[in-house]
C-alpha cells in the first residue's frame, strides 16, 4: 500500500485482489488482480455475467468468504483500515456498523422465527448499546425511513407476513440503521417484480441523499447499474476489463466484451424485423482456467496473435476511463456481426389458430379458493407472436399451462386448429399435442439428466412426429439438430455435459420435433447468461419466420417481449387488461398498469429522464381480488367510486388495440402526456 494522504471514512481501496477456491487438491482461480477504488459517498457498480466473480469481490470486502476460499494476494482497505489484517472481533465490530450488506432473496435472508422488530433492534442493541425501549423506537424510525407505513404494526410481524418488496426494505432498514460508511449491494432487486424493483431502486436513491454512504452495487443488469451508479467496473472471468464513469462506459465502451454485452441485450426500441441481436460466440472460460493471454481472446472479434500471447494491462482511454485491451481504439469501429435477416418469412395463411373464450382457472387450498385466471378471451392467428406480460399473481403462468394442457381448465373454451383442447394434454387428440408444444424456463430442469440427448430427441420424434425405426429417427434427428444449430457430437451426451445455451437448444429442438403450429415459450431465456440469451432469441425468431410458427411468449423483460412480439397482452390479477398490436400496447393511450410497467424499466438513455410512475399499496392477494376494476387500489389515474364499483368496459383504440378502463382513449391519451400525481407513502 502506498503512503496515501489522509483517507476519508467510507473510501474503499481494493488493490491486486486475487482469490481462489480450493476444491479437492486443486486451486481454482476466481479473481485475478482486481483493483479499484470507491470514493466516499460514491456508488460504484460492478457488472458481469454469472461466474465472473463479482459476488466474490463483495464477499471479500465483507471478509465473509467460504472456508475453502483463499485470498492469494492483494490488499483491501476501508477508511484507511486494513481489512485483511483485522481479526474476528474487529470484523464483528465493523460489520453492521461501518459496513453493511443487502443481497438477493429477502425472503430467506430474514429469520422466519423472529419478529421483524427484534431483528432490526438487534443492530441497535449490539452496536449502539441501546436498551429495549430505545432500540424499539429507533427501529420504528428506521421502518418509516424505508417508507413502510404502520411501523409499529410491522415491527410485531414475522417475515412471512410481508411482501417481497417490504422484506427487502426491512433489509435496507437493518443495513442503514447505524449509518454505515459502506453499503454493499449484491443483486438486491433480482427476483422482485419489475414495479417492485423500481420502487426499491427509488428507495436506494432516496436513502443515498439522506445517508451519504459509499455503495458497491453488484449486478448483472447493465440498465440498473447505469441508473444507480456514478462509476462502473466490468468483470469478465475474474478480471476487471473496463472501468470508468458509468455514462461514458456505456455510451462509448472500449473493450470488445463490454461492447458485445451492450449489443446483445434487446433495448426497448428494437424489433425483430429490423434489428438483430449480437450473440457472443463461444462460451465463458471454465472456472480456474489458466489463460496465458487476454482472457477474452477466444471470443473476441478483433483478437490477434499478440492478444493470445500476452495479457494486456489496463490502458487509459480518457480521464478515469480504462480498458484492458491492446486495441481499445478500434473498439468503436467494430461492426455488428449479424445483419438483419434477409430471408423471407414463410407464407402463412391468415386464419385463427387459437381461440380462448372466458377461460377461468381456480385453485382450491384447504378451504379457500384462489382465482388464478378470471375469465380471459384471446384470439391468436397463425404465425403470430403473442407476448404475454404480467407480474407475480397476474395468472400468466396458469393461463399458459391451461393452453398447453399441463393443468386442467376450470371453465371456458379453448379451441386450437378447430380441435377442442380444454382438456389436459394426456386426454387431447395426439394431433393437438404434436401441434401445440412448450419450451420451459430452466434448461437444467427441462431435460431428464439420466437420458442422453439422442434418447430425448428420439422419444419426441417417435411420439410427436410419428417417426418409427431407429434409422429413420436418427436421420430426422440430424435435420432437427441442424435446425437449432446443434452438432452431431452434442447428441450422444447427457445434458449435464452441455452448457445452458446448448441445453436450451435441445429443449427447443424437442418441441419442434413434430413441426408444431404453436409453441409456448415460458421465459425461455431468463435462466441463461446475457451473452447466450441473444443467440437463443435469434434462434427462436429464425425458427418462427422459417416455419411460420406462432408463439405465446412469456417474459418479465419488457424489452425482450417488445423485440419478439407482434401483439401483446398484459395481465393483472388474473384478468387481461390490455391487448393489441405490440406498437399500440406500448404506446399511449394504454392501460395505466401498462404505463406503470413501462416506466419501471431501467434505461440506458440516462439523459432522457422519464418520470417514474409509482403504484401505491401492495399487490392484493389473489384470494381477495378487489371489486370493480382489480387495479383500482393502486391505480395512479383512478377516477373514484366508479372504479371501485363497476367492472370497466373494453375501450377500443383503433382496430387492433383494446384495454379495460373507465377512461376512453382520447381522454387517456391526453392524461398520459404528463405524469400523474405521485403516491405519498409507498408500501410495496
Amino acid at each position, binding site marked *: 500500500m502506498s503512503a496515501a494522504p489522509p483517507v476519508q471514512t467510507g473510501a474503499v481501496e481494493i488493490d491486486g485482489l486475487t482469490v481462489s477456491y480450493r476444491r479437492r487438491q486443486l486451486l481454482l482461480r476466481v479473481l485475478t488482480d482486481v483493483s479499484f477504488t470507491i470514493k466516499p459517498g460514491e456508488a460504484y457498480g460492478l457488472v458481469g455475467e454469472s461466474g465472473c466473480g463479482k459476488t466474490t469481490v463483495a464477499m471479500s470486502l465483507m471478509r465473509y468468504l467460504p472456508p475453502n476460499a483463499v485470498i492469494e494476494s492483494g490488499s483491501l482497505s476501508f477508511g484507511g483500515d486494513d481489512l485483511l489484517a483485522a481479526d474476528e472481533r474487529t470484523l464483528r465490530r465493523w460489520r453492521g456498523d461501518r459496513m453493511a450488506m443487502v443481497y438477493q432473496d429477502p425472503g430467506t435472508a430474514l429469520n422466519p422465527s423472529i419478529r421483524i422488530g427484534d431483528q432490526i433492534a438487534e443492530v441497535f442493541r449490539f452496536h449502539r448499546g441501546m436498551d429495549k425501549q430505545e432500540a424499539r423506537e429507533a427501529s420504528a424510525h428506521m421502518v418509516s425511513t424505508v417508507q413502510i407505513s404502520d411501523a409499529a404494526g410491522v415491527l410485531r410481524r414475522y417475515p412471512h407476513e410481508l411482501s417481497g418488496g417490504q422484506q427487502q426494505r426491512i433489509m435496507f432498514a437493518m443495513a442503514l440503521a447505524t449509518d454505515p460508511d459502506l453499503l454493499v449491494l449484491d443483486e438486491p432487486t433480482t427476483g422482485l417484480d419489475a414495479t417492485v424493483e423500481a420502487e426499491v431502486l427509488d428507495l436506494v436513491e432516496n436513502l443515498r441523499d439522506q445517508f451519504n454512504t459509499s455503495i458497491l452495487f453488484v449486478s448483472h443488469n447493465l440498465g440498473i447499474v447505469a441508473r444507480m451508479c456514478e462509476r462502473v467496473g466490468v468483470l469478465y472471468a475474474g478480471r476487471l476489463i473496463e472501468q470508468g464513469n458509468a455514462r461514458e462506459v456505456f455510451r462509448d465502451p472500449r473493450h470488445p466484451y463490454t461492447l458485445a454485452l451492450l449489443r446483445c441485450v434487446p433495448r426497448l426500441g428494437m424489433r425483430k424485423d429490423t434489428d438483430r441481436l449480437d450473440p457472443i460466440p463461444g462460451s465463458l472460460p471454465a472456472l480456474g482456467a489458466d489463460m496465458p493471454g487476454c482472457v477474452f481472446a477466444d471470443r473476441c472479434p478483433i483478437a490477434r496473435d499478440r492478444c493470445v500471447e500476452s495479457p494486456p494491462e489496463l490502458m487509459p482511454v480518457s480521464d478515469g476511463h480504462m480498458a484492458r485491451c491492446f486495441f481499445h481504439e478500434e473498439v468503436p469501429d467494430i461492426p455488428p456481426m449479424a445483419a438483419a435477416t434477409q430471408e423471407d418469412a414463410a407464407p402463412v395463411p391468415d386464419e385463427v389458430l387459437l381461440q380462448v373464450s372466458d377461460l377461468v382457472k381456480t385453485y382450491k387450498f384447504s378451504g379457500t379458493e384462489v382465482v388464478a385466471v378470471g375469465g380471459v378471451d384471446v384470439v391468436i392467428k397463425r404465425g403470430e407472436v403473442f407476448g404475454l406480460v404480467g407480474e407475480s399473481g397476474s395468472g400468466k403462468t396458469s393461463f399458459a399451462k391451461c393452453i398447453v394442457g399441463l393443468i386442467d381448465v376450470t371453465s371456458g373454451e379453448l379451441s386450437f386448429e378447430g380441435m377442442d383442447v380444454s382438456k389436459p394434454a394426456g386426454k387431447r387428440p395426439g394431433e393437438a399435442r404434436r401441434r401445440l408444444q412448450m419450451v420451459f424456463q430452466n434448461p437444467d*430442469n427441462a431435460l431428464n439428466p439420466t437420458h442422453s440427448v439422442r434418447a430425448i430427441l428420439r422419444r419426441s420424434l417417435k411420439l410427436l412426429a410419428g417417426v418409427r425405426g431407429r434409422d429413420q429417427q436418427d436421420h430426422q434427428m440430424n435435420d432437427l439438430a441442424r435446425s437449432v444449430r446443434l452438432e452431431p457430437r452434442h447428441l450422444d*451426451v447427457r445434458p449435464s455435459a452441455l452448457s445452458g445455451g446448448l441445453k436450451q437448444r435441445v429443449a427447443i429442438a424437442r418441441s419442434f420435433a413434430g413441426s408444431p403450429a404453436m409453441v409456448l415459450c415460458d421465459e425461455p431465456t431468463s435462466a441463461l447468461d446475457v451473452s447466450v440469451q441473444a443467440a437463443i432469441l435469434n434462434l427462436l425468431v429464425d425458427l418462427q419466420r422459417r416455419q411460420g410458427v406462432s408463439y405465446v411468449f412469456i417474459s418479465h423483460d419488457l424489452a425482450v417481449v417488445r423485440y419478439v412480439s407482434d401483439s401483446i397482452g398484459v395481465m393483472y390479477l388474473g384478468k387481461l387488461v390490455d391487448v393489441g398490436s405490440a406498437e399500440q400496447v406500448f404506446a399511449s393511450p394504454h392501460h395505466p398498469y401498462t404505463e406503470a410497467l413501462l416506466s419501471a424499466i431501467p434505461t440506458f438513455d440516462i439523459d432522457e429522464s422519464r418520470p417514474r410512475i409509482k403504484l401505491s399499496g401492495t399487490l392484493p392477494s389473489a384470494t381477495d381480488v378487489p371489486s370493480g376494476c382489480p387495479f383500482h387500489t393502486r391505480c395512479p389515474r383512478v377516477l373514484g367510486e366508479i372504479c371501485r364499483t363497476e367492472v370497466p368496459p373494453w375501450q377500443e383504440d383503433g382496430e387492433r388495440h383494446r384495454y379495460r378502463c373507465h377512461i376512453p382513449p382520447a381522454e387517456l391519451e391526453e392524461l398520459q402526456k404528463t405524469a400523474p400525481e405521485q403516491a405519498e407513502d409507498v408500501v410495496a
Partner: protein
Amino acid sequence: MASVEGSGLELTPVPPAPVLDVRAERRRRRRELLRALVRSKTFIVGAAILIFWVVDAIFWRAIVPHDPLGVDPIGTLKAPSSAHWFGTDNLGRDVFSRVLAGAATVLVIAPAATALGLVGGTTLGLITGFYRGWVDDVVSRIVDAFLALPLIVITVLVLASLGRTTLNLILVIGIIFTPLIARTVRSAVLAEREREYVAAARLRGERGIRIMVWEILPNITGPITVEATVRLAYAIFAATTISFLGLGLQDPSPDWGLQIANGRAYMQVAWWMVIFPAAALGTLVVGVNLVADGLKRVVEE
C-alpha cells in the same frame, strides 16, 4: 465463422469444447463414485466388516474347527481354552464354530426381506407419489396406522398367529418394510415430479407408467440405495431380535439371537455363551450401518 469483409477484422474460430459420449461419461462417473467412497474411512471399515461376514456366511463349512451342531455331553459349559476358543455351551457345542455358522442365517433372511420390501415399497411409493389424489390419501392413512405399532410388536403378533417359519419371518419383515420404504420413495418422487422434464413428458403424451419407470425412477436411485442399506441394517436387527424373543428360528440353529436367548439362563456361570454371539452380531450391524452412512454421504455429495 465468416470474416467480415473489408474491415480487416477476422473473427477467430472458437475451439470445440471437449464433450464425452454417454458410455465414457458413465464410466467416469462410476470411477468418481468409487473414489469418493474409498476416501471415506467409515465406509472402508464398514465394508471390510461386511465382506468378512459375507465370506464367512458362504464358506463357514470350510472354516469351522468343530461341528456347530456337534453335541458333547461331557464337555459342557467349558470356559474358553485353546481347544475351544470361545468355550462350549450347555450342550457341549463349540461356541466359536456356532458363532461362525450363525452369520449364514441372518445374512439370508435380512437381504431377502429387504429385497421384498424394496420391490413393494418402490412400486407403492412411485404410484402414490406420482398419482397422488385419493389413492395417496388412503394409503398414507394406512401407512400411518402401521407406524403406530412398532415393528417388533407387529412381528410378534403375526408370527404368533401364523407360525414361526423362516419364510414367514422374511415375509413379515418384508411386508412391514414396504410402507416404510414407500414413504421415502414417495417423497423423492414428489420432489422429482415438479421438475420440468416430467411436464415435458406429459406434453408428449407419455403414459403414466412410462413416466414413473422411465423418467422418474432413474433419477431417484440415490435415495433408494441409501434407504435400502439402512433397511438392511434394520432387517438384521429385527430378525435377530425376533429369534431372541423365541419367535424366530428354533433349536438347534446357530442363529445368534437364539444363542443369546439360550445363553441367558447360564449367564452367571458361562458368560461366553452370550458375549461372543452378541459381539459378533454387534460388529455386523455396526458394519452395515457404517456402509449405509458412507453411501449416504457420497450420494448427498
